[in-house]
């Protein structure tokens, strides 16, 4: 078989290539810029690269098909999630510029790693071969391990990096062994060929196949921090720099869910009776554990970590009721979650200064008097995370739960609504502390710098837009999910 370069379809992966090139350019600025004044250029270059990638993804939104001989796929589904990831990465960059400026560090390699993590996430959305899935997860995870450790002289950041690395590498080990077993049972790593092997009854070792599928599922549950593999998330979220935590909660989760949907709908769609009950129980446990443990948290980042575990549980409902009914609701939820979570982390970034990260909720007493705008944004994000209209979070939950009812699974919706009621307590507690308590006196809060102001405003705009006019995005999500089957 003769192949030509055009068959690889490099033109379809140009957004990924642009982000990669921007990362290398950012690394070069670290070599060539000696002056402290020129350091913020790394952040602006990162934003430029992400902007070009967003524009190019928009340009490519109509095209699609198998690239790299089936190992990678560009379709409306991947494009949709790529938008969410790129916008999340851009907001994270804006927040990072604020975060590092206040700590008098402008490390270009931080932005380069942020871009490499973004490339990994983008590749994960289109990965159409188990090996591509594994490599994309590793590109993303390796960058995130280092990003978590980027405050090198901070004990808690280092500890978080160690835990993130060890459990992340462990889950990758489980995933890759599952991949090997599936290869053994089917003789292929391509998702659609795995499904074809099953349809042709060519699987000689069904037990091997099922164990492999189970291990891949465990690997994904680790990545999205589902119970019982959630233990790493609170520690890592607490110790990592606030913008990195935001990226982990938003981008990593969106990419992992996109890959899980593709793998389990394309390759293991015929085995749905085997994995759906497992995910059902994982979803129930994740919702309950995430929400009930969040109540007792005093540390805001730790509370948001448990809240993100709970949100992963809501998203898992979408997987268990089937992507055909819930797929568009999952996609809508991922976008809404991106805006509301990054808004909260944006305020957290703006408020914290220097060594005192001001992460404990009691420290936020009376912040509404000193910084009414910041407090209002935080309150909006908390309302949205709790799912109160007219915010993005309300419609995200509404569509997801509605699709589960359509699929006939009322019990899990009842559990999820119960979990949401519990979540009201800890989200509203933040608002009560901010608005109804007197300032502690000597508390010094920071303010927003210009880049962070843009990032936070973008999040607020997203939350309100999706809360008031959700139909447009939902229609797009519905058309996107149809490219999967």
């Amino acid at each position: 078989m003769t192949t030509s370069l055009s068959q690889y379809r490099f033109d379809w992966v140009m957004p990924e290539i642009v982000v990669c090139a921007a990362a290398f350019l950012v690394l070069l600025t670290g070599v060539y810029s000696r002056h402290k004044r020129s350091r913020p250029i790394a952040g602006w270059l990162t934003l430029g690269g992400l902007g070009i990638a967003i524009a190019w993804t928009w340009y490519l939104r109509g095209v699609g098909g198998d690239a790299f001989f089936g190992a990678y796929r560009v379709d409306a589904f991947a494009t949709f999630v790529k938008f969410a990831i790129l916008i999340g990465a851009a907001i994270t960059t804006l927040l990072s510029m604020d975060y590092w400026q206040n700590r008098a560090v402008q490390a270009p390699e931080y932005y380069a790693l942020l871009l490499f993590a973004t490339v990994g996430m983008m590749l994960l959305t289109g990965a159409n071969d188990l090996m591509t899935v594994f490599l994309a997860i590793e590109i993303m995870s390796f960058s995130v391990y280092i990003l978590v450790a980027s405050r090198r002289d901070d004990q808690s950041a280092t500890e978080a990096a160690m835990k993130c690395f060890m459990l992340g590498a462990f889950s990758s080990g489980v995933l890759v062994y599952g991949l090997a077993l599936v290869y053994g049972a089917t003789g292929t790593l391509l998702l659609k060929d795995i499904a074809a092997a099953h349809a042709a009854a060519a699987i000689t070792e069904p037990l091997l196949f099922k164990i492999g599928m189970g291990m891949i599922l465990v690997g994904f549950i680790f990545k999205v921090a589902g119970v019982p593999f959630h233990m790493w998330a609170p520690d890592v979220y607490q110790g990592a720099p606030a913008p990195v935590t935001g990226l982990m909660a938003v981008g990593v989760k969106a990419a992992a869910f996109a890959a899980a949907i593709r793998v389990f709908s394309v390759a293991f769609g015929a085995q749905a009776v085997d994995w759906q009950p497992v995910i059902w129980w994982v979803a129930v446990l994740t919702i309950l554990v995430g929400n009930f443990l969040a109540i007792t948290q005093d540390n805001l980042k730790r509370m948001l970590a448990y809240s993100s575990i709970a949100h992963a549980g809501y998203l898992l409902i979408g997987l268990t009721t089937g992507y055909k009914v819930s797929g568009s609701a999952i996609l809508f939820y991922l976008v809404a979650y991106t805006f509301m979570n990054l808004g909260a982390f944006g305020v957290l970034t703006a408020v914290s200064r220097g060594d005192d990260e001001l992460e404990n909720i009691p420290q936020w007493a009376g912040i509404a008097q000193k910084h009414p705008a910041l407090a209002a944004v935080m309150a909006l994000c908390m309302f949205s995370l709790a799912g109160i209209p007219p915010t993005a979070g309300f419609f995200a939950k509404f569509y997801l739960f509605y699709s589960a009812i359509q699929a006939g699974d009322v019990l899990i919706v009842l559990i999820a609504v119960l979990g949401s009621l519990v979540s009201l307590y800890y989200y509203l507690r933040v608002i009560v502390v901010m608005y109804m308590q007197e300032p502690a006196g000597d508390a010094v809060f920071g303010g927003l710098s210009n880049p962070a102001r843009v990032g936070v405003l973008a999040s607020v705009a997203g939350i309100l837009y999706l809360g008031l006019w959700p139909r447009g995005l939902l229609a797009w999500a519905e058309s996107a999910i149809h490219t999967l089957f």
Partner: protein
Amino acid sequence: MITPHHFLALSGVLFLVGAAGVLVRRNALIVLMSLEIMLNAANLALVAFSRMHGAVDGQVAVFLIMAVAAGEVAIGLAIIVNVYRLRHTIQVDALTSLKN
């Protein structure tokens, strides 16, 4: 006669040894080595299956996994060195500052 089942059994044992090492041992370096054993268990299985199916794609995957494993060691060691500089210990048990 050594069949694919023998290789599969060996790789399964290797994987369990690696997983047990990660979960039981408390020295970060030993944990890192155990993580590598897990990846190599997958490599052995892939090579054996590749031979069994008479295709090379499993062996190509092994090269990619080896590259990933090398990157993993580099990052893991860097993090362990950093932890040692700050705390003068690499016992995983000693990392308990992140609590509510």
